[in-house]
């Protein structure tokens, strides 16, 4: 067994869990090599020392304040739902009905989709620079339908604030990387591409930080367009 492999197994043993076969082989090696015994002792001591690291006590009232903040947020959301969401849904339903009836065609909810690159949301006279948000890992919550709903909700918020110019979903198919020295195709999950307007880079980053999927381990790249570089 090489020294490097021995060392890795030594660390595995300290970190656990126990493994009878590995530990038996290690015991033999430890008997043969005093230096390895010494290293094992030091690693085990460092690992055991962590036991002394009891957490601080929470600041007084921290727990009560956190609970109150949660209940306040719950109350605010419930109030919003009660007073805003249902009237808006009813209004949207009436609008769909009227437009559908007027055009002689029923419009499905799909037709209320977000602006896309083909049909961007343009605001006359808006000269704020554009930033592309490359959104990865939004499906990592393990609940794809729920994740899409959260991300769509966020996109709608951006849209309602006149931030979102367009949004497209990027499908996890073979991605061609060109011009990187070696042209390759690889399959990787991507996610979404949003084009937004923001006053400056800091504002774009602040908006990107609100992406719901950051809470479950996703990422956002904020890419300035040429307008932002002027």
């Amino acid at each position, binding site marked *: 067994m090489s020294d490097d492999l021995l060392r890795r197994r030594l660390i595995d043993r300290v970190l656990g869990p126990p493994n009878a076969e590995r530990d038996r082989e290690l015991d033999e090696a430890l008997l043969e090599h005093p230096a390895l015994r010494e290293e094992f002792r030091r690693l085990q001591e460092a690992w055991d020392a962590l036991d002394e690291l009891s957490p601080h006590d929470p600041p007084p009232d921290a727990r009560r304040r956190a609970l109150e903040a949660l209940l306040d947020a719950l109350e605010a959301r419930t109030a919003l739902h009660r007073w805003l969401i249902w009237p808006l849904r009813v209004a949207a339903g009436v609008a769909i009905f009227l437009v559908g009836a007027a055009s002689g065609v029923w419009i499905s909810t799909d037709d209320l989709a977000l602006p896309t690159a083909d049909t961007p949301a343009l605001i006359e006279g808006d000269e704020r620079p554009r930033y592309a948000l490359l959104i990865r890992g939004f499906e990592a919550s393990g609940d794809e339908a*729920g994740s899409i709903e959260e991300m769509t909700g966020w996109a709608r918020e951006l849209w309602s604030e006149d931030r979102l110019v367009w949004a497209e979903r990027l499908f996890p198919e073979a991605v061609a990387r060109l011009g990187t020295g070696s042209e390759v195709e690889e399959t990787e999950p991507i996610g979404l591409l949003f084009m937004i307007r923001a006053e400056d880079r800091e504002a774009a980053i602040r908006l990107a930080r609100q992406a719901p999927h950051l809470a479950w381990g996703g990422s956002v790249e904020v890419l300035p367009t040429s307008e932002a570089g002027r």
Partner: protein
Amino acid sequence: MSELTDKELIEALQAGDRAAAGPLFDRHYDELFAFADRLLGDPHTAADAVQDAFLRLMRYGRSFSGRSSFRTWMLRIVRNACLDLIEDRKRRRDVPNLLPVPDPVPPPPEPDPRVARLRQALEALPAARREVLLLRRFHGLTYSEIGELCGISEGAARVRAHRALLQLEQALSSKSGTHHE
């Protein structure tokens, strides 16, 4: 309420039931605070991170599928809140203060020098290694769970744990004057 599962409590909370908040706090606050405190080394910031995590729970609770345990899921949210705070700290250090900003409340002094040395050695680890070591030592997570929580592979979680332990051992040995190459 206290007999409900975590998933049922979150669903109740999402539906606006205030009574569901208490049992969730009772079950998880202490462990989440301990994780944040050890990761950040500061109880005041840790309390902020946990509070922020519970607020994020309100916002993203619907995305909890129940595939992983609620505990692991919340640890991930607390971890993200902590990393945001660490990032904020770095940014504040990078930006010159134009106006006097009050210093944050310092953590209480550590009376035991051995523990103080340990805290210092732990804080010297990169956050990405420190979190893996803490999750393994104090929360008993498998490498697979740690990988899922940190958004890395199981193998990468194991490698980080190895490096973290080696670095911690070297830091403690050098501080105690018994460092060996």
